[in-house]
């Protein structure tokens, strides 16, 4: 994936990792009837990657 990250301070690797993580979450949830909690998984992913 070609990442242009001039407008933010994050490394290409980190952004790519988040993208891959989000897509993986979606893939896992793809066949589930109730996808309401998907965004919470995304938040969890972000909070794990950017800790205090």
């Amino acid at each position, binding site marked *: *994936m*070609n*990442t242009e*990250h001039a*407008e*933010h*301070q*994050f490394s290409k690797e*980190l*952004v*790519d990792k*988040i*993208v891959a993580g*989000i*897509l993986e*979450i*979606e*893939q896992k949830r*793809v*066949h*589930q*009837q109730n*996808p309401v909690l*998907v*965004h*919470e998984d*995304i*938040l969890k992913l*972000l*909070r794990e*990657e*950017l800790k*205090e």
Partner: protein
Amino acid sequence: MKISQIKFNNWRCFNGEETISFSTDRFKPISTVYGTNGSGKTTILNSVLWSLWDILTDDFEQPTRLVSNSHLASVGLGKSAMGSVEIKFEHAGCKYEVVRTYIEKNLGGENRSAVDSRMMVKEIDERGEGHDWFNEDGFDRIDKMFPRRLAKYFFFNGESFVSDVTNQSGQKDFGRAVRHVLGLTIYERALQHSKTAKDDLEKSIAVLDNDKELEEEIVKQGKLEGNIEILKKAVEEVEENIEKAELEIEKIDEELKNFILINEWIAKRIDLENEIDKIDNEIKMESNNLMNLIARNNACMFLQRHAQEVISIGDSHRVQKHIPASFKESFIHDLLKSGLCICGEPLVSGEPRYDKVSLRLSEGALTDTEEEWTNLVNSLKKYGDLRNDFEIEFRRISARRNELRSKKDEKEYDASYFSGKIEKSGKNIEEIRELEDKRTSKKQLCKNLLVKKGEDSNQLKLLEADLKKSQAKIDKIEPKNKQSQLERKRHKLLLAARTEIEKELALRKDALRKKIEQSITNIFMQLSATNFFARLSEEFVLTMYRRTELGEPIEAALGKGDKQLSYYSFVAALSEFNFSASESKSSAYESFPIMIDAPFTQLDGDQQKRVISLVPKLTHQLILMMLESANEVMKTPDVLDLTPKVSVSVLYTANSAIPAKSIFLPGSSDPISYVVRTQEREHFSKLVQVR
């Protein structure tokens, strides 16, 4: 996925247990089900949709009455009865059995109520180990193999398919299903869910900082988004109403055309009636020929029947005489000449004894009799030859007469078709005026709706601009403490990830759109023998184009057949995409089977041949369900060459107008007999492997 068998148990019109099998041979992917109208072809299609995905097609009448009528009646008032469908299929090296049951209670007369419905999926994996899934888990299992939202685009009725996918909501659903097959919806959902996550982060910052301004902006943004959603729906609704009004105008135009066409129909009917009279005369002539032929050959018909008998009686008489006729004659001659009878008495000419022996001579002169006898036998044989000639001529005239009769039936059918049209359109000026008024008001409605659509769209643009501003404002607000600063950092990271997902989605969408467009174009050109080419919109809505003499692309006006072929090409292109992707293991799904009820109704003979030659190359399994009369296309040599083995099931009902008989199926040299059971709406089905 390849379906090998469907077993019905008291489900809909299938009383008792009935099984239909399909070919799962990779190189012989076509299975055909022939059946008269009402024999259960649509029921078969719906049985698959129902048992695997809990879907029934719109044209499936009385969708809540699934247990067979006679079975439910047989259990008695207040009792429950069960109907079920069991489907066996193969997928990714595993074997599956899906059983779905439906229980209904008999409430007397036509009344019934649903009691229960269950589903079970049994999987036998490559190692032979079994796993069972029930109800929701079963549905999830199936959905992973063949997503529910795709089902109706691979299992469909050829007659209604085009209208189902070309109306506005149909186009949207189809576009979504296409994007799903192509693996794009995962990116779309990622954007949708990450937006919710982004909103949550913003709310979190506001709470952590106790930032009233941010909170207000978030509330404002929420309202803006709500209003945008409402407006988008309103625009969609207006678009649907415009489409409805335009369709009504089209219908009115069709009705108005009737008034212009009526003279044409009358002329056509007169031509047909003249042709019918001509055919009638020919039939009469051939009937006379037949009568004359019979009259002329009456004697030979009679003699032929008795000739063999006469010959055999004569032969036996001749054998019984033992002594050869020539010897007998010369013996009597010698006796008369010697003047002494064998009893010892003298034989004197003129005396009664001499006359008596002389008489024996004429009786015994069998040389003449033998000759006459031979003549008789020969003439009888000649009559036999004449009889053969007669039979050949009789058959020829009868066949010609039958041919003329069918031709007459066809012409009469055509004439009655025009009579019906003339009768229906026999309207007066008042009605034309009414139609015109209706048309004018619909036109005005369209105009008004277009104005409303314009206003709403403008309003939408303004709101979207406000939303953008609001988002920019939110993004600019600086977090005040460490916690909120971290949340802001996560927020920015998420925005960066979203930008990447958007880019990736756009790139993939563009590449796949071009690929599918090319594939549809290639398939369509082979199916329709035209040079039209496909274009897909952002939402994957299909439009066919052609080039002008100057090479400019313009939208092509498609006939009914070509329109159907364009969507067959679309489905085939998706199937091909998945077929090649599954071969190279680069798709989440295996190749999907295609099952079409009434596949050829809108297509001419050549188009039918092209469909049946090409589509099997783009899928692992093609199941066609059609009228027996439509099987001509399956019998043509080039189709047989391309489909070396065909599985055929035949369905018949007791209600069928066709009496019990034998039919020739494609590729089969022997007729297949079918049985019509006596019980109402019971079926007979048989799988035959031909060639």
